[in-house]
């Protein structure tokens, strides 16, 4: 007599340590194999877009901090670029460099966290995570020196940055760059070519390039599939047109390639930071803009950046008032999440969490 089996539906989340926030996956299993996946999100919805309609343009900067809370600086940058385009304000050179520098430091911090949690999902019990956090801590210290906060930074303002870096910031940054090379090399030696990591992640959950493009996936997830699409190269903003860096790409599109691309991006980001330190010149750090901004009625703008997770964009429409008529956030995590079903179906339970970790989603940004 054959054994009668039937598929089983399991809820992962909404509160689960490996879902990177309040995210729920309703998965149907046949034994260990995944038959069906339904991602359910919206548990962290705070109505950022609606809240933006009743705040003035500078106050919205504080809202953008809370979208992708591990890369606040890049969120600020995207929003400020949108508002500057709306106003037609020219940002001073020094501010552009400071923005580029801080955004790249933030990218390093975000990737370190992404890598750390990806490896923790893989079962490394926190060792690489703590190695990453050690360096991230130093970056947060630099941010504290710069703007007084560690996570919710609000450092940038429409028209530049709120203030120049203090004098002791530059020696501290040099010290950090010196230490980081050693620490990052340690992390690479620890995990990058570890055989267990390779076996668990090579060839798992492959995202083909055509699907990635069709689903408008962006960021390291797209670049791991073989495209070299990067807004820092394709449409340089702030000071990226003066920076010399490479866009690391991989062709496999599997979990390991996504992890590998992030590791390589950290190296490139540090390269950009070094160039910023060399090229930065004294000058003004904020354009002459009033506290309360009033763009012309009917104007609209789309400010986009290459955030640590992908293409982050703010679409702002003005009706001439002190707050935007509408603000739309194009968040990379949400769009990258749309390929979850394709990535997971057919793979095993133990790969599911790893794949989710390799996408490096942030629920603050998905639900907004």
């Amino acid at each position, binding site marked *: 007599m054959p054994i009668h089996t039937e598929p089983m539906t399991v809820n992962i989340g909404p509160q689960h340590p490996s879902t990177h926030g309040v995210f729920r996956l309703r998965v149907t299993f046949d034994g260990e194999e995944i038959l069906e996946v339904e991602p359910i999100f919206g548990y962290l919805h705070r109505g950022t877009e609606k809240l933006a309609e009743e*705040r003035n343009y*500078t*106050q919205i*900067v*504080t*809202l953008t901090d809370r979208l992708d809370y591990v890369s606040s600086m890049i969120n600020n940058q995207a929003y400020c670029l949108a508002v500057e385009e709306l106003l037609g304000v020219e940002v001073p050179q020094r501010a552009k460099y400071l923005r580029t520098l801080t955004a790249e430091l933030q990218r390093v911090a975000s990737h370190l966290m992404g890598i750390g949690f990806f490896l923790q999902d893989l079962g490394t019990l926190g*060792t690489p995570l703590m190695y990453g956090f*050690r360096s991230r*801590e130093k970056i947060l*210290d630099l941010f*504290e*020196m*710069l*703007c*007084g*906060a560690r996570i*919710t930074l*609000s450092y940038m303002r429409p028209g530049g940055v*709120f*203030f120049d870096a*203090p004098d002791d910031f530059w020696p501290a940054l040099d010290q950090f760059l010196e230490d980081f090379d050693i620490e990052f090399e*340690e992390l690479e*030696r*620890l*995990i990058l*070519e*570890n*055989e*267990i990591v390779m076996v668990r992640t090579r060839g798992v959950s492959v995202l083909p390039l055509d699907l990635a493009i069709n689903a408008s996936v962006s960021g390291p997830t797209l670049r791991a599939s073989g495209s070299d699409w990067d807004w820092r190269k394709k449409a340089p903003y702030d000071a990226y047109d003066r920076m010399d860096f490479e866009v690391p790409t991989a062709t496999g599109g599997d979990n390991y390639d996504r992890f590998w691309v992030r590791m390589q991006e950290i190296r490139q980001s540090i390269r950009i930071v070094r160039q910023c330190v060399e090229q930065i010149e004294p000058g003004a750090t904020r354009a002459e803009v009033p*506290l309360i901004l009033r763009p012309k009625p009917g104007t609209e703008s789309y400010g986009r950046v290459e955030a640590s997770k992908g293409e982050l964009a703010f679409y702002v429409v003005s009706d001439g008032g002190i707050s935007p008529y509408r603000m739309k956030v194009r968040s990379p995590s949400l769009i990258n999440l749309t390929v979850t079903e394709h990535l997971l179906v057919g793979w095993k339970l133990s790969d599911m969490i790893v794949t989710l970790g390799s996408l490096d989603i942030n629920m603050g940004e998905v639900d907004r």
Partner: protein
Amino acid sequence: MYGINMAKGFLVTLKNFTKKPFTVQYPEERVKQHPRFRGEEFVWYEERCTGCASCAKYCPLGIIEIVTTPSETAPAQGDKYRLELFDISINRCMFCGLCVEACPYDALYMGSGFEQGQYSRKEMVIDIDHLRQADKHPSTFFRPQLEETGYDPRGGRPLHWQDVGREGWQWHQREKMGMRIDRPVPADLIPSDPPVDSSFVEDSPALSASKIEGDAE
């Protein structure tokens, strides 16, 4: 050879095993904040404040509540308006520092503390008396004039209102002089009947309504 990279990784952990931990054992030892740290509690200099409520208007969450009255006793101290209420509901504050940025007279500063938890929500509302009596250890956030002096909010001496501010305190005194009620006022600006304060007494509907709102928080 299979496993060579794992051995490399174990060498890294072995090397770090002998090192001192990077973490700080918090209650016993503390990391010193940077002078720009945006934290609790707010430092407010009454002598500099004109009650313009720029901070209240600029706060994204609207947690600063200011009530001023045209006063008859305040001119003795050199002011036209008296601050009746200056409440900061710090329980909803996100320490963005926009109120400090908006203050045109450098009267409001961020603090540098981070461990002022309270047991009840009512204690999280900082009122005017609390602000008057608090220790004046302003953070240098958005105040370059403090940075230039090399002042350190943690461990430095409390700063007097004359020590802080973009403009010298003499400038500020002159500015406040301009607000004196006894300066010559053009005849067409003088109201026909003198201003009555009765709408601002304790049990007036306007004030008690706002008080109830504050309590509901």
